[in-house]
Every structure is written in C-alpha cells, then in structure tokens.
C-alpha cells in the first residue's frame, strides 16, 4: 500500500439478511482515499451508499450479515479487527456525521454530555473537562453561544445548529477521517451552504480526509477531489472531479449529469430521476445493473457483468463501452 493512502477499500460486498432472503446491498466497491482529501460517493437513493460506509466501520449489526472484501484503514483491515480494537478507532480515528442530526442525538441527554462522552472514553477526560472541551469544540464549529448549548437538549436546537454540534462531536478526538453521510440533505439551502463551508474550513485547519456521501452533484462539485459513482450496490465510475464533470464515461453518470442543471449550479434544484427504477437487489441481474435503463445498452450488457475498466485520466468505469473488444469492434466498424 502506498504511503499516502489513508483508506483502501477493495472488493467490499454486503449481504443483508431479511425475511425474504438476502439483500445484496453492496456488490463490489473499490477505492482509495489519500489523507486530507475529499472523496464524494454519489448515487441515487437506495444504491447502497450508507450501507457501504457503515459496513466499513462495522456499524451494521444485523445478525447473519455477510461481509466480504477488505477495508484497510492506516494499514489495518477494519473488517478483521476485534470489537474492542474497532471501538478504539471509531470516534477517535474515524468520526461520523449522519443525515438527520435531530435523530442522531440522544434526545434525553444534553449536547454537552454527548460530546463529552466521546472524550471520556477515548481520552479519559473527566466529565467536567469533557464539558469544557465540548464547549471549545462547539465554538470551533462556530455554534453561537456554546456555553449555553452545552447544557441544552437536542430538541432545543435547530437542524443547522445540531449539525454543527454533530460535526463537533465527530471531530472531538481529532480523527484522520470524517465520514459524512448526507450531512446537508436534511437542511435548508442557506444552512447547507454554511455547513459545507464549515467542513471546508475544518478540513483546512485540521487536515482530515472526508468521505462525503451525497446525491447532490452541486455538493460534489464544490467539495470533492475525487468522485465515486454508485449504482445498484456497485461502483460504476470513479474519477477526479474535473474529469467526471467534463467527460463522464459511464452512461449512468452521464444520465445523472443530464438530469442536473448545467452552467450555474443551482443547489436547491432537486436531482431529477432517470426513467425506470434500479434492479431488485434480492436477485441482482447477471448483467449490467443499468441495462434496462441504459440508452446505449447492447446485447452483451444483459448477459454479462461489465468489469471495472480504465477510462482514461486515472478514471475507471464499469461499462462495456470501455471494453477493449468493444472499442476494437467499433474501430473496425468505422473503417
């Protein structure tokens, strides 16, 4: 593993048991994240973004869960760690921020005590010291009147304020990686903007890497260094952010971009949906998952799963259009 790699995910697969059998929620994710950079994970709702990041840090607890692949964080495979070792990493080396800050805080405990709890278990702080540090963290996250906030309950704060507190809590122990699962989806536009700005500021001052989940391409354009596009539990394209917007390789990415307003990125415009719906993850198709909705689908797409293939400029794409044989065939046809 190269020195400058913080996180390397390879071949991650997640099967979730349900009454009706296994949901093959994640079917192969590979990417690497360098320290201090931001990777955006995008894809439409239900494509497995949350499941994959939660599986990476061992947050999925369903009995009978099947995990495959490896998740190397600072040279250690998180999927192989014992619970105790994992607990020492979670909250300390990896902080997490969730979508809905109101439900992510325990409603019956004060903000301060919840932040202090993280400090107490990882840094052995006393309760009082923890509260002082919590106040400082809230201040760092630009929450107004931090002294008062420490003693308040979650329901007394607005969504934006809570998300700041959530970020403060995730960063309490100075983690190298912040995983933010749609941190702004539940917020209004102005607040979204402030939270994103805060994240950028914090990344500059603290230098942590961010794994940012979103389905808002505007957010991607603003925050990310690299982008991974997910579809139906698979990574379908990964590229640098400029390359992705300039020359998307995968038909799904292209459809996503077509469904987003061009030119000036207007953040409050919802992402339009692509006709059709994603495949049933109980019984994933044997071919390309995007086949029924793809305007460029070919006969082979239905029968055989395309592999991740280089698509130029360090980008990769999971599509037959990138296959050398296809390129050769097309080349021959053009002759």
């Amino acid at each position: 593993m190269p020195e400058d790699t913080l996180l390397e995910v390879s071949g991650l697969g997640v099967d979730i048991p349900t009454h009706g059998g296994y949901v093959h929620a994640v079917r192969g994710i590979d990417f690497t994240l360098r320290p201090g950079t931001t990777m955006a994970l995008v894809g439409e709702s239900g494509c497995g973004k949350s499941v994959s990041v939660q599986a990476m840090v061992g947050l999925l607890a369903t009995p009978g869960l099947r995990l495959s692949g490896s998740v190397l964080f600072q040279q250690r495979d998180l999927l192989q760690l014992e619970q105790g070792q994992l607990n020492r990493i979670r909250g300390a080396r990896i902080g997490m921020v969730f979508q809905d800050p109101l439900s992510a805080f325990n409603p019956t405990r004060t903000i301060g005590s919840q932040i202090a709890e993280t400090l107490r278990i990882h840094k052995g702080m006393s309760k009082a010291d923890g509260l002082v540090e919590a106040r400082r963290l809230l201040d760092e996250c630009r929450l107004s009147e931090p002294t008062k906030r420490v003693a308040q309950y979650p329901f007394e704060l607005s969504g934006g304020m809570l998300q700041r507190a959530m970020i403060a809590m995730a960063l309490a122990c100075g983690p190298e990686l912040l995983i933010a699962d749609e941190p702004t989806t539940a917020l209004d536009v102005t607040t979204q903007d402030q939270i994103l700005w805060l994240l950028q500021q914090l990344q500059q001052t603290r230098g942590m890497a961010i794994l940012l989940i979103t389905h808002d391409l505007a957010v991607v354009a603003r925050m990310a260094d690299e982008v991974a596009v997910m579809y139906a539990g698979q990574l379908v394209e990964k590229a640098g952010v400029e390359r992705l917007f300039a020359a998307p390789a995968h038909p799904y990415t292209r459809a996503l971009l077509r469904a987003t307003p061009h030119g000036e990125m207007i953040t409050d415009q919802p992402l339009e949906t692509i006709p059709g719906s994603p495949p049933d993850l109980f019984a994933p198709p044997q071919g390309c998952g995007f086949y029924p909705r793809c305007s460029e689908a070919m006969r082979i797409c239905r029968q055989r799963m395309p592999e991740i293939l280089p698509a130029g400029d360090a980008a990769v794409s999971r599509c037959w259009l990138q296959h050398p044989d296809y390129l050769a065939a097309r080349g021959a046809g053009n002759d």
Partner: protein
Amino acid sequence: MQTFLAKTRQAGPLARYIGGRLLSGLFTIWFIATATFFVMHWVPGDPLSDEKAVSAEIRQNLEARYGLDKPLPQQYWIYITSMLKGDFGISYTQKNRSVNDIIAEHFPVSAMLGALAIVFATLGGIVWGAIAARFRNRWPDAVIMFAVILTVSVPSFVFAALSQHLIIKLNQATGVSVLPVAGWGGLRHMLVPALVLGLGTMAYLTRLMRASTLEVGSADYIKTARSKGLSSLQVFLHHELRNAVLPLITVLGPAIAAITTGGFVVELIFTIPGLGRYFVTAVQQLDYTVIMGTTVFYGAFLVLMVLLVDIVYGLVDPRIRLQGRADA
C-alpha cells in the same frame, strides 16, 4: 436534570398542560359523582327509599344525611357539597359507620399492597424486558416471552388460588409456617399477594420494555453512539436502557388502575382487609351508599394517579415538556 426542572417552574407549556389535565380530571370526577347520584336515584325501586331493607335507625341517619325528604335538586346539592368537603356518606347496611371511616381503615392496606405490587411489576418488567431484548430471538428471549404470554393468558384469580395452594403445600412439606396462607400483618403477609397482584402488569411491562428497548436499539442515535466507539455494554447502559424505560412511565397510570381492580380479587382470595374486598362485599350486598362513596373515591384516586404519572413523565422526559399534548 436540575436545569430542566428549573425551567419547568417558569410556567410554560407544561404548566398549561398540567392545568388542562387537572381541569379535565376534575370534570371526570364530577361526572362520575353525578352519574352515580342519578343512577342511584332513578332506578326502579329507588334504593334510598326502599324501606324494607333498612333498619329504622339507619333509615333516620340516611334521611338526615342525604336529605331524602327534600326535592331532588336539593338532595343533589347536599350530595355534591358534602363530597367536595370530603364526606363520602354513611353505610347502608352497617350502623353508624361512615364511608370515610371505611376508607380510612381499609384503603391504607390496599394502597400498601398495590404499591408493593407496582414495585414488583416495574422492576420485574424492566429487568425481564431488557434481558429479552438484549437476547433477541435467542433462547432467553423465547423463554421470557413465552412466560409473558402465559401470564397474560391466565386470570389473576387462578394465580392467586394457585399460589395459595402452593403456600399450603410448602408449609405442609416443611412443617413450619414459611409464609402465611392468608390474612394481614407484616411484610410476610404482603409478599405473595403483591407478587400475584403485580404479575399481569409485570408481564405487560416486560413486553413493553422489550419492544421499547428494541425500538430504541434501532434508533439513529444508537448508531451514533456506536460510531463514537462506545462498547455495546456502554451503549446499552447509557443510551438504550435509559431511553427505553421512559415510555414505561406513560403506562403506569393504566397499570395502577389495573392493579387497583386486580386488588379486589387478590384481597378476596387472601382475605386481606383492604378497601377492594370491602368494595366487592358492598357490591354483593348492594350497600348503595358505600358503593357510591367508594366508587367516587376510587374514581378520584385513579384520575389523580393517571394525572400524576403524566406530570412525572413530563418532568422526566425533556421532549414532552415543549410538546404539550402528544397524540397516540
């Protein structure tokens, strides 16, 4: 905890909520009293004017006390005002015994028994429910839930009779009186009856505690707590348990009502001199004035208990304070 207690004192939505509840509670009590009054007077063969059942002496007492010779509205006025003064009337079958005397003598016994039953039920419910949830779908869960469903399927008088039978057998087997079979005295007399009395509620609370623990377990903030690196035991103790117990408070009101009613049966079987047993006797003998007085007393007691439980919940759960009346 102190901070929000302090905050509730500045009359906010909670104060208004409590005020509203108090008002509707008083209305309920008034309605119960009035309904009792009119039903007792308008039945064919008005029990209060039925001469043959009552001795002359009691008759005189009754007439003086209820103003039976006066017109109905006046009688109603006398009845309501004396109720307001806390005077529940006099017995119809027992000479010179007022309902207040009866309540004063027998209610403390019922209250003690009921309180112990509530303690048993709540502690048992929390412990069993938490265990069942923690071992969800494994054998401890299966055993506990089977016991629960069995318990809620057997009438409480069967448990009472059964436990009495067991005590007798136990005493016979050991040759000494390990536990009293019936009657009233110290804690030893209360133990088994209170356990039997609390059993149904315990089963119900166990089920509720399990459901509530599971629900809390799937809440987002539990995921947050785990993402912070808390061990599963820390998550359970500091986040799950605490929040799962809260909803149990809301059903303590109905639970108290159920235990009060259950007390009638248990007191009867274990011959405990509580108000419940007295009440059943009065019902069986149609001692109308005792029925009237005692039911209004019970009605007021239950309304107050439910109100009290709601207020306690409002104080304990910071979420409720601002919400006011939450819909089921």
